[in-house]
């Protein structure tokens, strides 16, 4: 349960969390996925539930038992290893991505953990002439203070489209 009030923007903890997300986005845009894995805790949970168009009164707009991603460290490592092979055709030539991170709010989690909400717009260009693709999502992260600094322990991505209009998720959000 996210606390009701975000900590003030001037709070050093907020600035550190915000900077973490921006630095992380820079690694993703540089396709430095090994570096990105280094920002995750060993017990990382990385999920992206399928969003659905339901009536206002339905009480749900994501699927509780189906995601576009539902990952732990093993599966994320495999994905990163795959992209590093010479045979990951879909990313060769690689996508050019830009992860725009905004609307960042930090909430006190206790026990050296911070809940961070952010908005993401990912612009993805593939090939030379293909129309670009956009993925818009909210992200709900759990950042944990470790000896090496903040690390991402959990991310839930709430994508804004029920039907994705990107060819695949060979990129991270």
């Amino acid at each position, binding site marked *: 349960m996210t606390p009701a009030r975000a900590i003030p923007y001037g709070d050093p903890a907020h600035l550190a969390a915000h900077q973490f997300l921006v630095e992380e986005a820079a690694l993703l845009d540089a396709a430095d996925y090994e570096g990105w894995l280094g920002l995750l805790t060993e017990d990382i949970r990385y999920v992206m539930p399928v969003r659905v168009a339901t009536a206002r009164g339905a009480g749900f707009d994501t699927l509780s038992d*189906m*995601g576009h991603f*539902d990952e732990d460290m093993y599966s994320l490592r495999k994905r990163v290893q795959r992209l590093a092979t*010479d045979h990951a055709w*879909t*990313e060769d030539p690689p996508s050019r991505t830009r992860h725009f991170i905004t609307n960042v709010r930090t909430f006190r989690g206790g026990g050296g953990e911070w809940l961070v909400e952010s908005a993401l717009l990912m612009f993805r260009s593939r090939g030379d002439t*293909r129309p670009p693709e956009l993925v818009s999502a909210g992200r709900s992260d759990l950042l944990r203070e470790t000896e090496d600094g903040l690390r991402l322990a959990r991310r839930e991505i709430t994508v804004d489209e029920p039907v*994705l209009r990107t*060819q695949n998720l060979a990129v991270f959000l």
Partner: protein
Amino acid sequence: MLALGTVLADVRRGMIPAHVYADPEVFALERDRLFARSWVFLGHESEIPDPGDYVVRRVLADSFIVARDEAGVVRVMFNMCLHRGMQVCRAEMGNASHFRCPYHAWTYRNDGRLVGLPFHAEAYGGEDGFMRAGQSLLPAPSMATYNGLIFISLDPDAPPLRDYLGDFAFYLDLYTRQSPAGIELRGPQRWRIKANWKIGAENFAGDSYHTPHTHASVVDIGLFREPKASKRKEGALYVAGPGAGTTYKLPPGGDFAEQLRYVGYPDDMIPAMTASWSARQRALVSDSGFMVSAATLFPNLSFVHNWPQIDAAGTVVPFISLRQWQPVSECETEVLSWFVVDAAAPKEFKRNSYKAYVMCFGSSGMFEQDDVENWVSITDMAAGSMARRLNLNSRMGLTSTGQPIKPPMDAASFAGPGVAYQGFGEFNQRHWLRQWSDCLEREPAVRGPAADMGAAVAPGAAR
């Protein structure tokens, strides 16, 4: 101007005019002659388990409500209000006792019956002006289920579904009836790709030849216990009824239970699989030593079954996915990809199998990522002028005179029905394309006159 006769003659020679993968005239024929008549998958009963549950699904441009009514009966209704044509239900899933049109509040029960018509007396003069009694949303012209899979046909004279499935039902059971409890579907993940719908359908039907190269990366990273993607060439390809599929060769010598264990099925599930499948279905696994992999039921429903390692300890767990290649246009397809699991499977198996699925297939799947890249690229290339000068060779497995380069398998080596060949070949894609060709030569379904809604007798002139 499309020279259909030439195109189909070429296809039947195993030479595919490349432009059929991006041709608006071909797409229009597919819409009018193929999708207007074929049995098309819409969903599974497990997606709407309770009265009032519904999902909204399409057959090309036509939207249908697939609902379980208060009596528990599954109904498929055209999602268009009888009055002014609004889309009655604009959510994609949910639970409702009624569907109310937002335009003028015409209201339908979840079995389709029209029960609410505001100001019926004042506006229409009651039943004489608009006969409300007995009216309902248009039902799908034909509807039937098999193992809980819901199919419709826009042709009221479609052959019975079971007759249509023919010998492919044998293989369908292997994916969709692992226990008497049947399957449950989760999802679907939905995403749109700039690829022609036929390419995925053909690929799943029989393209074992692409696996060693397209999917080299997943072998590189050790996602599978078997070290080489070339194991694909030991597999058997089969065609049966309107379907076709690929298999993997299992290690020699195992009995039925041992082979299921090898693929990663827990001991808890094996008795039900033994009971649920016929002796011949079990023999395909035990005596012949083949396990089903990818398959396509014509026209656009595909299946996949595989068994990756889901953790660093090397735990092998199988998964099944069912997917539909829903045409949007000649160069765009919506993929609907479901995770499928035996409803009676242990919780832990369901969790692990789901993990295996998400890693391998679907919107982020490590197999699917590279597949779609190829299909988008084919579609892109097929749209130009030069593609009209190129017939793609789809004759793999045949000599120049049209004889198979090796004989079909006999019953002793492949226990399943239909015709099977071991090794690489494009027998299955040609089988799919022959059905496609036959469909494009059919006349569109006979629709008869459109129904006059609410009229007791054919009304006279309006003013």
